[in-house]
């Protein structure tokens, strides 16, 4: 049987990978992927702890909400990246350091 700690280890590994990707990549899309990975690590934790609430299944419910919200934020982020690219002709976050017109 898969124990809770196995889930937590996988989740922690996912979070670390996501964090590493977010910090080191020079591409906004890849950073977005990193963020998704960290989000999924969190969702994985929600689900893993959800087995202690067998009656209302609030963990699973909250995970579903998080997935939907993550999809929505990803869409918004991609739109922003697209606009950033239009303006700066690059999506390297280090180079897009000017907010003014």
């Amino acid at each position, binding site marked *: 049987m898969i124990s809770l700690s196995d889930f937590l280890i996988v989740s922690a590994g996912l979070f670390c990978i996501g*964090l590493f990707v*977010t*910090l*080191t990549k020079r591409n906004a899309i890849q*950073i977005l992927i990193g963020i998704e990975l960290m989000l999924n690590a969190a969702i994985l934790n929600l689900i893993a702890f959800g087995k202690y609430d067998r009656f209302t299944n609030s963990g699973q419910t909250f995970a579903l909400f998080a997935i939907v919200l993550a999809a929505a934020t990803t869409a918004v982020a991609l739109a922003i990246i697209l606009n950033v690219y239009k303006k700066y002709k690059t999506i390297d*976050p*280090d180079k897009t*350091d000017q907010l003014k017109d």
Partner: protein
Amino acid sequence: MEDFLQHIDTLTINFALGAVIMPLLAAIVNRCLPANSKPSGWISTLAILVSAVLSIFVFAKVWNQHEVHQQQVWFTIGNTSVYTGILLNNLSVLMLVLVSLVALPVHIYSTAYMKDDDRYGRYFVYLSFFCFSMLALVVVDNLVLFYAFWELVGFSSYLLIGFWYTKPKAIIANKKAFIMNRIGDIGLLTAIAILFASYHTFDIEQLFGANGVVKSAAISSNWQYVACIGLFLAVAAKSAQFPLHTWLPDAMEGPTSISALIHAATMVAAGVFLLGRFYPVFTHDELTILAIIGCFTAFMAATIALTQNDLKRILAYSTISQLGYMVMAMGIGAYSSSLFHLATHAFFKCLLFLVAGIVIHEVQHMKDEYNLHIDPQNILYMGGLRKKMPLTFIASVVGGLALFGFPLTSGYLSKDGILIQSFEWAEGKDWLHKLIPIGALLTSWLTAFYIARLVIKVFFGEFKAAQFDPAIKLHVSDGKWQYRVPLVLLMGCSLFPLFSINPILYEKAWIFNGFSVITALDRVNIYHTILPLLVNLVGVIVMYWAYAIYIKEKALPLPESGFLFRFSYREWYFDKIYQKVIVLPVIALSKFTRWFDRNILDGFIHLLAKIGIGGSKIAEWCDRYLIDGFLHLLASITLGIGNFARRFQNGKVQYYLFSMLAIILAVFIFKILIY
């Protein structure tokens, strides 16, 4: 009674005041005119003419009558009031009339003599100013004013000696005269101060008058000596007595008319006048010292005059010698003869100087005309002027004979008076005292020789300068009327009738009798006949001897290379000795004080300054490195913190994120470490 007397005297006082003020007015007017203005000569002459007329009037009023003395309060300090006023007695009116009468011909003469000078007007400013000072000097009744005018005559003399200020010799001469007179002035000031301290008055009448306090109450003897030494210094400086006589021969660098008035007739006689004023101060022993010094001066100056070649220098030494006679006469108590000789000497010495001026003037013209390289004052280049300048020649003979004291001249009356009284004075005393009359007698024969030498070298024989250029034609003349009139006037005054009806007996002279009260010498009849005879017989022989030496070219009595000749020619080496003994040490002392001032005193000041600078440098270092350094340290710490914090705000999103991670990690690690 007093009011009545004052009423009569007011006119006399006003006239005397007028006589004194006139030259001052002339000086002021001339000073306002340009330096070369031609009318100034006549302005000054007119002023002195008025002075002379007023003086004669005053003289007639006062001579041998009650003396006129008017004064008023000048200023008051504490309880002491100082009075100022005019004192007219026999002595002052004699001097008043003498000064203005001698000054008058000199003024007339000067109008011609200084004609070509660029500073003709300025010359008359000085001349009138001198006349004012001298006239005021003789009438003031107050020692403070006396001292002031004493200084002013010295000052105007200084101005006039250096009148040709482009000549270096004239500048040296006037400095010398000024400094030497300064020594005498210090003496006079000391004496006045001591007199005031002792008697609490400056009034000459109260001090030295008939009932003067000087006679009744003596000063303590030490202060009396100091006062007399001071007075003697004043006399010696002004009247060119040994040891302060060396300025007078050098003073001949001034215009000749000035030499005639100031350095022969009037100002140098001020010393003798001072003796006359202060006479009661001197004790018997001090008078003897005066006599010795006067006699020595007379003898020394006469020996120097024997060998000098400069026309004016001979006359200058002759003046010193005659002033020596006057001082000696004061010393032996022949008060009246001394003043009598002062009066006669003023006229004939002035005459001789005017003659010298004319001769020099003419020789200078010849020199300019023929381009000769001769000194126009050197008598060795002259000669034979007798035929061309008859009036000048006669004037010189009259002056010369009067100087020697030949019968029928005024000099005979005054000088033989001195000689006879000196023998009477020495009568019954030891041989040392006898040296004084013998010295005076010898001096009188020396006088005969040097004045004969002068007249013969200038007027007899051939014109010596002709040997340089045979083409020279001697065309000199007596000159204009401005030259002739003064000569005639002064010649008249150099003969006996002005002074005495009897040409033989000096005791009949009116000036002599004007002061006869003071004379108290026993009359020794035999001297009165033998001495004049002896003096004149030997004197005539000496004169002929001089004629024989210089015209018939007999051998000189002393070889020119001999020690005695050089001793005389070099003026007894006085200048050299003074140079070595006084001037050089004084200069060395002043150099030392300068060195002391510069190195020690200034050095100390500089040391203080350097210490100050050092202190401020330390303060500056502290300020810069400690105080500012602390502030800079604070600033750089702040800067470092700012720079450190700024690095986090670099606009890179990932970096912020990393920072957050790092901080959270740090917090966790910290938490773990603590628990």
